């Protein structure tokens, strides 16, 4: 008999008749790091939400140290020592770090807040675990990595012994990931038990003791990490072999398509410039990647090119045409396609149907409108074509509401829309964020195919693997400048990391670089 702190036995959780968790069993040993793996929508977050008391399972039971417990809300979970870092942070942006940590378990006298002791405890905890934070900083002013520390401190403040991390690394830079993994190891050593959700098999291989795999809401099994491989895990998860290495030939490089010259962009957070005098080119038939740790100006460069922000200084030329001051529509017409960073904010009108979203960039073209009237039939036919071609899955085909689609399929829809419209240059910003390996594989293939069709691709990504695998050329940004131009074939992840952290730079000269 193993010594399990938590056992979730035969859990079934339904949403409107759909089984998100179907007879799932998960057993967590004391002091272990237990990974939970599965495609998008496999039911990982749901299972954790059941454990944390956000949802109640229809069937199954939960045991703590062998005794059955009921968890009806986060308070129950908290009482049992269960804490969770959510996939999307649950922090109140305008509150201070301290206020966020104590929220829900506020020390008080007759309802009046007593922050003094809490502050002391938080400072102690952050020292003890090396989670450096300023208790009085406002959440919206601190970095994502810092916010995650706050989430972790929230659990520690509540003396939680069982820690759930739902995709904690998706939003972190490589350095931050390393730090987090160290912290998790530390927790495990102390006897805390950790449930760790991630789509990145490397992380599982490096930190987890065991791994439970889900597929489409079903339990696929639990394996010891030391006895398994990445390939085996992904086969368990997807049901087929997945190739991690993107198949691509030598690039067939052509004319300069995009030319960015001496771009300077203001920062939204402070008075400094987020982008300082940056210049680079993207040529036809190549994938150029803007790499760097989040917050080093990459997003602002993209915004300058796409027109989401006004350019402060410098010029952007596309296919020989100065597009710096053009509005977004004109840029689109000049041949720009853009897979935006935030698919819910920019990429889709969630309340529109799929078909209405598919013409978002081209409803004004003669093909889809006549004298200002939308050609509904053309729109429908066009969407049906794309659904087939890109394997976009949704409930009601073209008429499904975009809101009801899964993240992966929403992303596919955006990619279909942006790739199918006539364009010279594709800008893809974090196109695979939060997606499972299957979806990632698909998207990578599409990017390479676009390149091979003679278009230029400008990719922005924080995923080092993706950067190394996909790109033909890497531009590393650090503090608003391009500090290195690398060829992925001649470099290593470690070297890339050095550039990203500013420890190394090879491109100091301003102006144009070849």
């Amino acid at each position, binding site marked *: 008999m193993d010594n399990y702190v938590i056992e979730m036995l035969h859990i079934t959780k339904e*949403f409107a008749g759909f089984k998100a968790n179907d007879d799932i069993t998960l057993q967590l040993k004391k002091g272990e790091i237990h990974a939970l793996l599965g495609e998008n929508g496999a039911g990982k977050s749901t299972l954790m939400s059941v454990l944390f008391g956000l949802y109640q399972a229809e069937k199954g039971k939960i045991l703590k140290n062998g005794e059955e417990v009921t968890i009806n809300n986060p308070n129950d979970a*908290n009482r049992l020592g269960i804490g*969770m870092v959510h996939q*999307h942070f649950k922090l*109140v942006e305008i*509150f201070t770090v301290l206020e966020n940590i104590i929220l829900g378990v506020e020390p*008080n006298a007759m309802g009046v807040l007593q922050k003094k002791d809490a502050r002391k405890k938080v400072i102690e905890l952050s020292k003890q675990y090396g989670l450096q934070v300023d208790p009085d900083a406002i959440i919206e002013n601190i970095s994502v990595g810092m916010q995650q520390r706050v989430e972790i401190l929230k659990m520690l403040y509540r003396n939680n012994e069982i820690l759930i991390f739902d995709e904690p690394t998706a939003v972190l830079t490589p350095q931050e990931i390393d730090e987090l993994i160290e912290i998790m190891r530390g927790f495990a050593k102390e006897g805390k038990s950790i449930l760790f959700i991630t789509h990145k098999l490397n992380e599982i291989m490096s930190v987890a003791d065991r791994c439970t795999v889900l597929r489409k809401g079903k339990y696929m099994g639990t394996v010891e990490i030391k006895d398994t491989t990445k390939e085996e895990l992904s086969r368990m998860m997807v049901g087929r072999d997945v190739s991690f290495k993107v198949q691509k030939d030598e690039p067939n490089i052509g004319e300069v398509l995009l030319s960015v010259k001496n771009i300077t962009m203001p920062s939204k957070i402070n008075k400094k410039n987020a982008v300082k005098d940056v210049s680079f080119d993207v040529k036809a038939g190549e994938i150029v990647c803007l790499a760097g740790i989040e917050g080093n100006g990459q997003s602002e460069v993209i915004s300058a090119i796409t027109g989401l922000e006004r350019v402060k200084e410098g010029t952007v030329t596309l296919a020989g045409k100065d597009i710096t001051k053009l509005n977004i529509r004109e840029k689109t017409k000049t041949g720009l396609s853009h897979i935006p960073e935030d698919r819910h904010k920019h990429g889709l009108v969630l309340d529109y149907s799929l078909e209405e979203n598919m013409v978002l960039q081209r409803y004004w073209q003669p093909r889809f409108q006549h004298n200002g009237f939308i050609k509904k039939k053309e729109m429908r036919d066009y969407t049906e074509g794309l659904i087939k071609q890109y394997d976009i899955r949704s409930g009601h085909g073209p008429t499904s509401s975009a809101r009801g689609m899964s993240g992966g399929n929403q992303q596919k829809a955006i990619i279909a829309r942006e790739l199918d419209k006539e364009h010279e240059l594709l800008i893809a910003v974090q196109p695979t964020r939060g997606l499972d390996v299957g979806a990632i594989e698909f998207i990578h293939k599409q990017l390479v195919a676009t390149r091979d069709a003679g278009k230029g691709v400008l990719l922005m990504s924080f995923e080092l693997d993706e950067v190394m695998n996909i790109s033909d050329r890497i531009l590393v940004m650090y503090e608003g400048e391009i500090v290195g131009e690398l060829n992925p074939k001649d470099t290593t992840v470690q070297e890339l990391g050095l550039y990203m952290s500013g420890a190394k730079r090879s491109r100091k000269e301003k102006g144009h670089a070849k």
Partner: protein
Amino acid sequence: MDVIIYLIQNMLPVAIPLLLVALGGMFSERSGIVNIALEGIMLFGAFFGCLSVYFMKGLTIDPQLILLIGMVVAAVAGILYSMLLSFAAVNMKADQTISGTALNMFIPAVTLLFCKMKFNSDGITNSTKFYIQKVPVLSDIPVLGPLFFQKTYITVYIGILFLLLAIFVFYKTKFGLRLRACGEHPQAADSVGINVYRMRHSGVAISGFLGGIGGFFYSVGVMDANVNGHTGVAGFGFLALAVMIFGQWKPVQIFFAALFFAFLRTLAYSVALIPFLNSLNIDQTYYKMLPYVATMLVLIFTSRKSRAPKAEGIPYDKSKR
């Protein structure tokens, strides 16, 4: 000097209803519920407050006590009426603007209907006098005495008391912290075991409490304890919304915003007292428009960085992440 004292004496009874109602709106909106129904809640409170004053007219009790009783009635009425909003918005996940608008439409019609049936009138007329010519002792303090303790209403002091209380509850208590969390990020509040629904009900109930009292205080301090279905509360509920936004959803700033608006409004009707303005001979209409124009100008300059509670207006659904 006399003019200044006069302006301040007359500004306060106007500022207090605005202040209270805007504070109410703040509690509601910071909990996540857009409260466009303030106008209706005010009238509802004013209606029941005045009605209770009407029924107490024969009694030989101190008018200030009658006022306090009327205030309690108005507060209870306001809470009850606001529950119609929170029921719709929280339990039924209804659109908050629509429900609020319905509540604004409902009460003037009910006031008219009731008063016509009962009094053959458009409203309730009271003759109880709540005005305080002089507060004993305090009114003799130089400067401050005439400013704050002569020719005034007890509503002014109660209003200030509620302001202090609101600041305390809002910033210093567990309840305030939780309430503000619900208006910003209800999912976060939920995930730490806070009952978002209950907090939102409470926020709206507080807006009902303050809104009802504010409505009654409007009647007392501005309308001589009368209430009328046609003129209602003269758009003060909507103005309070503007004051709330102008005050950036923060109590102290709301206080100053209310004073600002009330001052301009008082000024607009006191032009004759101010020789300089009087000599300009400007059409009175411009003065009447002044508070509205000024409020708008202020909003134009503050709106760029204006930041409404992030989750306001969005029904919270536990089952959605």
